[in-house]
């Protein structure tokens, strides 16, 4: 049983208990609800009267149970009636649309223009108090809620292929509605129902409390609270029992509704919270004491780094080196772990992911070496945006839609520099001009949605280079763009490289043409592992891993004699092959490949391949 289903047991059981109690009220050994006993009015709890006696000496417990019966009858009754009316209207409106929609769903929605209690009050006062006017009022009140929910669900289901198919086959609309669509809209209907029962109880008890609902001497919780208010000085407990019963019952129904919702809608189960926001969440990580780096140290040296979610390894023993001024392309299919590797360098991995092994030693501006994988949140924050920057793939989603571009840029500068006013403005405009945004004096006041896709990506890049970082990580910065814009953005990166000679760059991409254009070295990843590494020209001329070779021959521009697709797909992390991870898709695989996982080998001084048969590849 799923956890979300298990959570239904508690509210479900309580609801069942409450319903059983009020249904069984006539056969339970309860005192007469109208049996007065004036001499013992306001008597406290006793063996005969467990919860005491009220202002007429009537038994409180039995009035509580019978009162619940009245409340639930009205609430459930109107919830069911409103469900029938609303579902009919919603189904018709959602299926036929057009004029039908106007007269069903839209007409019902007019009711929503009035505050709910006010509407109920109007109906009840016009028809007089009592159980049935109350049910009518509540039915009218909740019909539009159902109509809306069912309307939305119907429209969704209506567009699905199997319904279209049935329509095409000429099935009668009524049959489609009842047989196909109704079962599909049941889950949201069920959620709505428990919500309406709770809400109807609130209004019913409120009206009864005002003396406009259930008519005495029929017991009702609202009436009991009304009566108890008058006797507050003498018997405060009389107020407590019906209040508890009422609030408890409504709470249970609300709880049932919440849990039904999460049980029926798996999307609602999101990763909770954000660990980075909790001050002491990373206390396992101690601040790292800086160590002086050796003189010829590379900018970044990742060795044997692994990343895992729970106990599932997504990235295994990745090694990668970036020297100052060097651009390393990180290539692979989706799911190969290249983006995760990039995110880990800025400490921006999602909360559920952890660096489980290895190190990523970065040499800072002042010549100290720090292990990025072990840095605490505050330590890595100081590096982020200042020394190590990131350009994300989807600029439209990565820029805050409600802040001006210039403000977002200014904020990035101010995070690391004491600068404000005129000087800051000038810096912002200069940066925007530098990344090729036309008319930066005015454009810095634009919101992200007012820019074109290419300009947004330029703004994103401006954010990343705002503090002249020494390591720039670009995560598929051209993937979401049109081909012509892609070329422009690549040119911009090339320009940035030329302008800032010392800046190292990790360029994450799946596009080999891009690699050839921008990178000095290339690292190929497959299924969470580095399979090949080397200078771009050499790797392209003579790949030493079957996967790299296959990638190259699958690109039209590569000049391969004929295009070949790689058979099969990347294995899922749950289902990794025991031997070489590429073996199932590899044309060179032998028995050894399937039993043993290959170690990194060096075909040349600056080349790495993870293949037993690299000598046979090309």
């Amino acid at each position, binding site marked *: 049983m799923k956890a979300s289903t298990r959570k239904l047991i508690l509210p479900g059981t309580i609801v069942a208990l409450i319903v059983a109690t009020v249904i069984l009220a006539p056969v339970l050994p309860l005192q007469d609800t109208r049996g007065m006993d004036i001499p013992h009015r306001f008597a406290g709890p006793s063996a005969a009267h467990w919860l005491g006696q009220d202002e007429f000496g009537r038994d409180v417990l039995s009035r509580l149970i019978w009162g619940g019966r009245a409340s639930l009858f009205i609430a459930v009754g109107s919830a069911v009636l409103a469900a029938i009316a609303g579902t009919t209207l919603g189904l018709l409106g959602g299926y036929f649309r057009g004029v039908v929609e106007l007269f069903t769903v839209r007409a019902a929605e007019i009711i929503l223009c009035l505050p709910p209690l006010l509407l109920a009050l109007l109906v009840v006062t016009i028809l007089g108090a009592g159980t049935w006017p109350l049910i009518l009022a509540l039915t009218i009140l909740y019909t539009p809620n159902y109509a809306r929910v069912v309307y939305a669900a119907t429209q969704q289901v209506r567009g699905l292929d199997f319904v279209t198919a049935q329509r095409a086959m000429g099935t009668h609309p009524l049959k489609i509605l009842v047989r196909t669509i109704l079962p599909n809209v049941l889950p949201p209907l069920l959620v709505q129902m428990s919500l309406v029962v709770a809400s109807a109880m609130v209004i019913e008890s409120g009206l009864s*409390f*005002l003396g406009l609902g259930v008519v005495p001497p029929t017991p009702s919780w609202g009436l009991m*609270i009304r009566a108890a208010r008058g006797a507050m000085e003498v018997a405060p407990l009389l107020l407590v029992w019906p209040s508890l019963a009422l609030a408890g019952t409504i709470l249970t129904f609300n*709880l049932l509704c919440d849990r039904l919702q999460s049980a029926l809608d798996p999307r609602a189960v999101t990763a909770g919270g954000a660990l*980075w926001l909790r001050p002491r969440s990373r206390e396992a990580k101690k601040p790292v004491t800086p160590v002086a780096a050796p003189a010829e140290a590379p900018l970044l040296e990742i060795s044997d780094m692994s990343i895992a979610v729970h106990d599932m390894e997504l990235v295994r023993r990745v090694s990668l080196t970036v020297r100052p001024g060097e651009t390393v392309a990180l290539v692979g299919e989706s799911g190969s772990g290249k983006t995760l590797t990039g995110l880990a360098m800025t400490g*921006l991995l999602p909360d559920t992911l952890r660096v489980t092994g290895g190190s990523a030693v970065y040499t800072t501006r002042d010549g100290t070496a720090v292990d990025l994988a072990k840095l605490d949140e505050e330590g890595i*924050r100081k590096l982020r945006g200042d020394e190590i920057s990131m350009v994300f793939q989807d600029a439209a*989603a*990565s820029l*805050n839609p409600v802040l001006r571009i210039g403000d977002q840029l200014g904020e990035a500068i101010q995070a690391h520099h004491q600068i404000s006013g005129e000087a800051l403005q000038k810096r912002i405009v200069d940066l925007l001009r530098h990344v090729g945004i036309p008319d930066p004096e005015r454009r810095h006041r634009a919101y992200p949605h007012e820019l074109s896709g290419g300009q947004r990506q330029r703004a994103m890049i401006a954010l990343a280079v705002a503090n002249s970082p020494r390591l720039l990580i670009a995560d598929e910065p051209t993937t979401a763009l049109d081909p012509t814009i892609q070329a422009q953005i690549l040119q911009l990166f090339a320009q940035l490289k030329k302008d800032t000679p010392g800046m190292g760059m990790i360029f994450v991409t799946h596009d080999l043409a891009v690699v050839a254009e921008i990178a000095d070295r290339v690292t190929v990843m497959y299924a969470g592992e580095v399979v090949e590494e080397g200078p771009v020209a050499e790797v392209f001329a003579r790949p030493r891993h079957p996967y790299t070779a296959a990638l190259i021959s699958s690109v039209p521009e590569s000049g391969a004699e004929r295009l070949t697709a790689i058979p099969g797909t990347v294995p899922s992390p749950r289902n990794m092959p025991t031997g070489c991870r590429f073996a199932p898709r590899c044309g060179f695989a032998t028995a050894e490949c399937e039993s043993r996982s290959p170690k990194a080998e060096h075909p040349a001084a600056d080349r790495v391949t993870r293949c037993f048969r690299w000598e046979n590849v090309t």
Partner: protein
Amino acid sequence: MLRYIAFRSLVALFLVWVVVTIVFLLLHLIPGDPAELLLSSGNVAADPQAVAALREQMGLNAPLWQQYLDHMAGVLTGDLGASFRDGAPVIEQIALRLPRTLEVILAASLIATGIGVPLGTYAAIRADGKADAVISFFASASLSTPVFVVGSVVILIFAQELKWLPAGGFVPFSEDPVEHFKLLLMPAGTVALSLLAVITRMSRASVLEVLQRDYVRTARAKGLPRAPILRRHVVRNALIPVLTVLGLEMGTLIGGTVLVEFVFNWPGLSGYLVSAVDARDYPEVVGIVMTISVLFVFLNLVVDVVNAMLDPRISLVR
């Protein structure tokens, strides 16, 4: 932006017209003669001649469409007619009582937003932790407790047992400001409690949603410290749906404070409506319902406009 506001205002005006018409028809088409109702007391039938005279005087003998046109003409000139009961202009009573109801709603909204947004944000940051469970439970509990129950229990505790506050009533601000606020405290607090639950839940959900957004990751990538990320990127963006909900809730409250006003003897607009409906006083009922729906629709308009100002994307989308 201006076009957007103009369009929304037109829709709002149309809605007000629909509501006024419906209420007018509802009250005139149902069986029962207000003149007869006014003149009869208990089980004694009214004198038919007096009823006829009164009907003439009240204009009830004119055809329905004429009554409707007269009514609409009155509404447009700000004349909501005179009360059947005492002949006083309805607009005067509304002008007197509306501010009192608005005062309770406004005070409650301030309390609820001031506490609910930080509380919901905190719960979201600590999602699935102990603090979150406690906050969520209290939100559900106060959402599940009807206002008159809260009101009664609050009176029981603070007026009856602790004797800190008077049990209910109203003193105009001009007469005694201190007493005025003392009396405001319990009704406003009671309304605030359920509103607080709504705001807290909404803030929590909204912050959780925003935390998943890419632009929060960008803000982190810039190296911004926690506080500015939370303030400028998370809470600011998360507030937009919260404010929408607050506006809608306030609109519902304008007609929904009946119970609170009853419990605390607060002489606001809602209580006036109950007695007007009870007496079948057409001009009063129509006047109050119209006031409430105008406010309701107007508030929705304000919410939309504020949304459009907070979220620069909206004005382009429409």
